[in-house]
């Protein structure tokens, strides 16, 4: 049993998950389940997001003022809490995306050209 391991995974995901949420919300307001689905679909099921892990991230982002939340009605007429990207969130997304790209490129250069296995 290992609460500790779980926590480490969360920490590993933290920055990335925030970025993914912000990126998803740029397409328009979305509720938690929708965000989870969207991340899974756009990553072609490469990224498996534990839906539960999403909510602490959403809380955090809301805290920082990057997203705003409001109860509304979903497409199939269910009540759900919808998240919207704020102006600050948009800025953050740009900054984070840029940082992430540079990081990915740097790591790519370090790792060298892809080789067939």
């Amino acid at each position, binding site marked *: *049993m290992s*609460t*500790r391991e*779980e*926590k480490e995974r*969360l920490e590993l995901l933290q920055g990335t998950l925030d970025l993914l949420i912000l990126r998803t919300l740029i397409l328009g307001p979305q*509720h*938690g*389940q*929708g965000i*989870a*689905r969207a991340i899974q679909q756009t990553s072609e099921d490469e990224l498996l997001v*534990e*839906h*539960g*892990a999403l*909510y*602490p991230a959403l*809380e*955090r982002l809301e*805290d920082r*003022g990057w997203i705003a939340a409001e109860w509304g009605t*979903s497409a*199939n007429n*269910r*009540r*759900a*809490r919808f998240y919207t990207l704020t102006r600050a969130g948009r800025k953050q997304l740009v900054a984070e995306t840029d940082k992430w790209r540079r990081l990915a490129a740097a790591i790519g250069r370090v790792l060298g050209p892809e080789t067939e296995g």
Partner: protein
Amino acid sequence: MAWKRRSTSDFNAEIAAHVQLEMDRLREQGMSEEDARAAALRAFGNRTAAEERFYETNPALWGERLWQNIRFGMRMMGRSPVTTAAAVLTLALGIGANTAIFSLLNAVILRDLPVRNPKELVLFGPGHWRGSVDSVPNRSWQLFSYHFFQEFRRKNQVYADVAAIDSILMTPHGRVGGAARMETVGAELVSGSFFETLGVKPVLGRVLNEHDDVTPGGHPVAVASYAWWQQRLGGNPSALGTTVTIGSTTYTIIGVSAAGFSGVTVAQSPDVWIPLAMEKEVSPGWNGLEKDWFQSLYVIARRKPGVGMGTASADTNLLFQQIMHEYAGPSATAQQLENLRHARIDLTSAATGLSQIRRFTSPLLILMSVVAVLLIIACANLANLLLARAAARQREMAIRMSIGAGRARLIRQLLVESALLGIAGGSLGILLASAASRLLVGLVPTGSQPLPLDVAPDATVLAFTLGVTLVTVLLFGTAPALHATHLDPVTALKDGRAASGLASHNRLARGLVVAQVALSMVLLAGAGLFLRSLMKLLDVPTGFDRENVLLMGVDFPGAGYGDDARTERLMRRVEDRVGSIAGVKGAAFAFVVFDGGGWTDSVTVPGRPVSENDPEVFHNIVGAQYLGVLKMPVLLGRALTAGDDGASKVAVINETMARLYFPGVSPLGRIFSVGKSAEWQNVQVVGVVKDAKYMELREKPTPAAFYPHAQHAGFLYNFLVSYTGEAGTVVPRIRRAFAEFDPNLPVSDAKTLNDVVSESVLHQKLVAQLCTLFALLAAFLAAIGIYGVMSYATARRTNEFGVRMALGAEAGDVLWMVLREVLGLVAMGIAAGVPLAAGASRLVESLLFGIAPFDPPAIGAAAVAMTAVALFAGYLPARRATKIEPMAALRYE
């Protein structure tokens, strides 16, 4: 960060909505309702963990969760009320004892005087001496003359102001507001600059200023203390102008000092302050305003802002040497000049005032350590209790962890529960402490009045208690919390009794018990040391009869008598009259009595060279029957008699003085002189008396001389009466005899010399008694610890004992098995405790009398006592083990 009011229910609603939406999606893909729900929940993952994390990110909910923890904790405590009550009481005892002793320490040595910027105040010397000094000490000075004070104040550069205070609080009898009744008035003689130096303002009228302290005998004014104004004058604003008559002088109250201010001496609360210029009027015979070498004053000064201790000290000593060389003048002896070279003033901070009861400082520090150890022992008990409870709650913990509660969350929950215990114990402890500290202050006899020492908990005390409680909670709560949450839920769920944490639980619990025994050993051995030291002290032969002698105080100047031959003749008549009362064997006045200070001075014998090593001689002026009253046997020559009233001075000396000053010859008929004054030259020795203790029980054999008061005019305060029968019938007769001479003569309550002697070892007695009390408490707590651990251990071995007994083991075998375990624990505790006790006792060496710090009887007694207590504590669970029904025990598994 924004304050979020988002509630848990809102968050839960969102999660429910999420699961619903996911289900909707999956059902669209053709799943059945049930499969969809299962899949949605699976995709969501650990819901509890999500909630946990939600809490982590949301500070607004901390309060809510804390409240939840508290409610839960309260429920858990309510479920086992006896355990909880025991825990809270144990804590209250530990914290209460610590707070009580700390309140005393705080009041005696820590608290600042209620004056302006107390940190700027300095005292010249450490302020230990009281009385007067007329020599030139060759070391750090503590007492100063009025002349010196005035000159120093005029010439000094580094102090904003300087004040002088008589080192003795005068307690003459007087009449307040013209009343007929005489009452004791605590009068502190101070310089006119006293209030200005301290920065103490009046609440009514005015305080003394330097114009009130100019002409000797010319300033019959007094400032009332706030407390006295409240108690004696009813807090009435019209009290200004009230008169206080002391002797033949009538003083007018010109003001009342600020509330809370009771002078600069801790635990001493003067009723009035009177200018030093009135010294002779307040206390005839105690007057040295005009003498350069009548040194009886404390000097206190306020440093100018920015003047450090170093600068102040350098300037003070420079000026001191300059003034003293002036006084010594050209006629100074070589010895005086030599002494002066070593004379100095050590500045002491006066921020916390000065105190005659500072002699209680080291006892208080010892008691503080004792109660700290007691608290640690109490903590060990609580830790054990919580460990046992944690074992009982293993299933709960395992379930909560397996449904996703984080370990941190559980630890927090357990710590909140400990903190609740701590807060309950701490609050109860403060209540206990305020009662206990008042009780402790009450144990110090000060005559009819309680010791004026404010031990009510103030901010410092409360902060101390809070700190102690926090430390306590961490001490007893952390280990069990870490321990309880460190488990494997699967095993723990399968069977609470077989879970893996048990072995380590046992080790921890036993370790705690061993530590308790070791620490209790230290306290018991310490208590033994103090008790044995006290017994040795009380066994010291005093050399005088303390059983059948009464002591009374007679205040001649209070009734207007002068320090003259007329008063002395009255004293002789009183002695004769009281001596003739039925039941009285003899009566004598005395200048000093046991534990009442003393007058020591050097002595010169013609033809005998003065040596630096000559000890000073103790002098006493006494009535003719004094030696008989105290049953001090005359060894040579004769005792003093009523006939010793002529012009040629006589004395009876003791063995030690005879040996030191008249070695190898009979001292009878020989001559000696005391100091320089004409009155004390050429005193003839008429007898030698056996040695006795004169000032305290611990003193070494001291040379002493006794002089008849018929040859030394003046009044004496102490009146000794030896009697037969009941003191209760004799005392009224003595009082009536005094009233025959003068109904206005104030005579104090009588006490026996036995009381006087036992009061003289009061602080040794208090330390011994309190240490014993705390050590017994400690042993009791350790016993509870042993009982708890052994009960738990035998309960867990029910099965094993059942098997053993089924196989033929006798009850005695089982009993012995358990007790052997107890003995093992105690042996380890004692083994660890003995070196600890030996080390600790070295720290209290200076307070011991007649025994070495490593005292085998004390340590042996402690070990025996501890073993007995432990066996008793272990016997109860052991007996329970012998009562096990083998069949029931086997089925139990």
